[in-house]
């Protein structure tokens, strides 16, 4: 149970921290308008030159290793929905760190996601 809790915290908080860094890095690159393969490769190359992108990837890698550990202990149908708590952490992070305008409607959606997560937890037993 302790092991699962450690994995869970790493997936939700460290993983979301990584995604926030990646999101910030991609806003630096700017809106992608050309979707030809060589253009996408160029965008990915530019993104990988940003230190913040690497910080994000490193944090997401930690979360990924925790996910592998968690998957060895629990069912797929439990692990993925339960980690949806990261959506609440993500919305909060988007508001606090990326200064996104999270509308009441978006908060309501996030709330529904969180209630769904609780039900998935209850349903585990």
């Amino acid at each position, binding site marked *: 149970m302790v*092991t699962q809790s450690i994995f869970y915290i790493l997936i939700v908080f460290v993983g979301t921290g990584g*995604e926030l860094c*990646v*999101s*910030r890095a*991609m*806003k630096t*690159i*700017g*809106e*992608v308008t050309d*979707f030809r393969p060589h253009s*996408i490769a160029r*965008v*990915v190359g530019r*993104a990988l030159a940003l230190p913040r992108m690497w910080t994000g990837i490193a944090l997401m890698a930690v979360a990924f*290793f925790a*996910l*592998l*550990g968690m*998957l*060895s*202990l629990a*069912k*797929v*149908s*439990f692990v993925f*929905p339960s980690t*949806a708590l*990261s*959506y609440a952490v*993500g*919305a909060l*992070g*988007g*508001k606090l*760190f*990326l*200064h*996104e*305008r*999270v*509308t009441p*409607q*978006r908060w*309501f*959606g*996030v*709330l529904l*996601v*969180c*209630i*769904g*997560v*609780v*039900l*998935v*937890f*209850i*349903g585990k037993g």
Partner: protein
Amino acid sequence: MTSSQGLHLKTIILIFIMISVAPLGDTFLGKGMKIVGRMKGWAPADLFHFFFRAFTTGTVWLGIELLLAYFVAYILVLSWADYSYVQPASAASYVLIALLAHFVLHESISLTRWAGVVLICTGVFVVGHTHPQTPEHHSW
């Protein structure tokens, strides 16, 4: 087509790719990790053996490749759309994960858990009806 409609359309297309590819990747990852088995402990040797077994399992690599495709779609959409929009919108993949877990991995899923999955999807639907891009002021 207005620029707002175009923005919506390309956002929806990329999120559709994300929610199609990620559940498949997750399912292969889950199947692979069941082959690998439980981690024996936190000692460095146990951790090494656990991750060595994981990264020498073909099914795990299939999952990783699909998740890399997901990651590329994810970073592309994040170049214009809000993180607080993209992240919950991509949660629609939970329905697909639940279906794959039930029908492919033969996991039993309780009614309560199905209800949770449906609620998560409803939340995603609500988020999906907000505009993907809001004015922002980065401070870091």
